[in-house]
């Protein structure tokens, strides 16, 4: 499916191995949709509602926190199930990484991934650039509008809920919005929606800021610069610090933009990438790794500090004519 931009020096691996994460992801995305769509067709119910808020097997409520926040900003107070549902979603993505939603759950990902794939296949190079920080502006706007107007303004156009609700309850003209997102990603700005504008993804990114699950490049010294990972990555800017150790950066991809789609792991013929579990510090090292790397230095520092303190105490005691053993 993906043509390496430059031939890798490693032997080619089977197709399935190069796409195992992608297949898992598609299975997950379509499986979630199926749980909502299929049972009602046979008169049953598995997951009711949609991604905005759902109830699974009459016991598990899940609510989109950004939607609930907008609703509350209009001055409305949700019911208990709404709060519980949003809490569960926040905890889940806070642990797993916020943008896991984008690559593993969000149905728009199917549309924008298709646009990105088509761009690569057709070799479309055209397209402008917009700032990735626009999504934070959009997130601010989405939260400000309900406060000002008292209405859930974003929900009149939100492609994420439009697509998911449309697939379950019927589209109307909502497919036009999705077509717009597709064409925009294909022709106007590459990866322009999810990575640059979508406030839903921005919100989830914030939720997952401190998540202990990461993609990392622990075998980065093997990298032969074939660029495959940069080609498939929806947020290629997150790879560089970890892969190229820019500015002494550790091997962990610590940007909240990383969607943890796992495509870099599977496309790399030299198996540079992998998962890393643990809290990450400022420099792209896992905290426990940093401790493991520098125990001797820390011991030395601690001894030095103790020595300095003892010296100052002794001096003080001498000044006061007190004898210290």
């Amino acid at each position, binding site marked *: 499916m993906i043509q390496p931009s430059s031939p890798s020096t490693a032997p080619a691996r089977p197709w399935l191995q190069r796409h195992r994460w992608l297949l898992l992801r598609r299975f997950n995305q379509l499986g979630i949709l199926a749980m909502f769509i299929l049972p009602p067709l046979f008169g049953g119910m598995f997951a*009711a*509602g949609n991604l*905005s808020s759902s109830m699974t097997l009459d016991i598990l409520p899940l609510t989109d926190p950004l939607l*609930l926040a907008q609703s509350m900003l209009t001055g*409305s107070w*949700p019911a208990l199930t709404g709060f519980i549902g949003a809490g569960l979603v926040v905890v889940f993505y806070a642990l797993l990484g916020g943008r896991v939603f984008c690559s593993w759950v969000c149905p728009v990902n199917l549309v924008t991934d298709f646009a990105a794939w088509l761009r690569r296949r057709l070799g479309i190079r055209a397209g402008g650039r917009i700032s990735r920080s626009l999504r934070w*502006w959009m997130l601010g706007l989405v939260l400000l509008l309900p406060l000002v107007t008292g209405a*859930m303004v974003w929900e009149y*156009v939100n492609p994420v809920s439009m697509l998911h609700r449309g697939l379950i309850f019927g*589209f109307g003209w909502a497919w036009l919005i999705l077509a717009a997102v597709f064409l925009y990603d294909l022709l106007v700005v590459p990866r322009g929606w999810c990575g640059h504008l979508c406030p839903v993804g921005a919100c989830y990114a914030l939720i997952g800021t401190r998540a202990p699950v990461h993609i990392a490049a622990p075998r980065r010294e093997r990298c032969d610069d074939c660029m495959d990972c940069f080609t498939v990555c929806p947020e290629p800017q997150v790879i560089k610090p970890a892969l190229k150790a820019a500015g002494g950066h550790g091997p962990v991809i610590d940007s909240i933009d990383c969607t943890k789609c796992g495509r870099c792991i599977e496309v790399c013929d030299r198996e540079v990438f992998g998962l890393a579990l643990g809290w990450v510090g400022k420099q792209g090292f896992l905290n426990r790794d940093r401790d493991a790397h520098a125990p001797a230095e820390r011991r030395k520092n601690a001894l030095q500090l103790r020595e300095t303190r003892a010296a100052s105490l002794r001096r003080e005691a001498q000044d006061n004519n007190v004898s210290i053993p």
Partner: protein
Amino acid sequence: MAIDMQSKRNGVGRRDFLTGLARTAAGVGLIGLGLGLYSRRAASLPAWALRPPGALPEDDFDGACIRCGLCVRDCPFDMLHLARLGQDIPTGTPYFIAREAGCEMCEDIPCVKACPTQALDHGLTDINDADMGLAIVSDQDACIAFQGLRCEVCFNICPIRGEAISLDYQRNQRSGKHALFIPVVHADHCTGCGKCEEACILEEAAIKVLPRHLIQGKLGEHYRLGWEQRQRAGGALVTPDAEHRYNLPEGMRYDHGGEGLIEAPGDAPFPSDPLDTLNRGGSL
């Protein structure tokens, strides 16, 4: 010069930074303006679309509803729908159309229980308190009850039969010997479930359910109904009641209680001296 030096050091000068910031803010602001204006237009609910039981007033509802469709899914009768983009109803919000299928008024109100927000007010526990709209006999020329034909379908299908819709028996002027069975809606009891409109046998329903604020009247706050006040107070609050005296032959009087013209010996309506009449209370 100093600014140039700084801009080279940081990669972007203060002027560039501020211009970029202003440009982004203006762009995002324009998007916000567009969205805001569109939403004002898109948020209006047409009168023929009714909200599920317990729905907040429309302005609040639009802010509270998160468009999840859980009420639609939990309705055992599948009469609720989620509005689609392009319909005249706010996209993604639940509605029903009375003529197609009215609310069956489940006693446990599953749609309200399913709502994860308070868009459907969880304080609604008795379905008879629901207020989805108000029925109105909107066309007396078309309604066959007004033609003297027996129908009473709306009266009989009404879940609060006899209270929300009652039958008013009137004389059939055309035949002179039959009764008209006129359906009358009582706003205090009608929940706006829409069953009457759904069931109306006409090609186009002559009884319709509309948002209450469009059709319900209201007395001025200052208005008092005399007979109610009198009953509450146990007597007349202003001038004491005096029986109206008709100019009748001597020894006769008229009774409004159903007796009609009766003999009342010694009860001459007007004594020969007019002053006596005036002294008797001044009423004629």
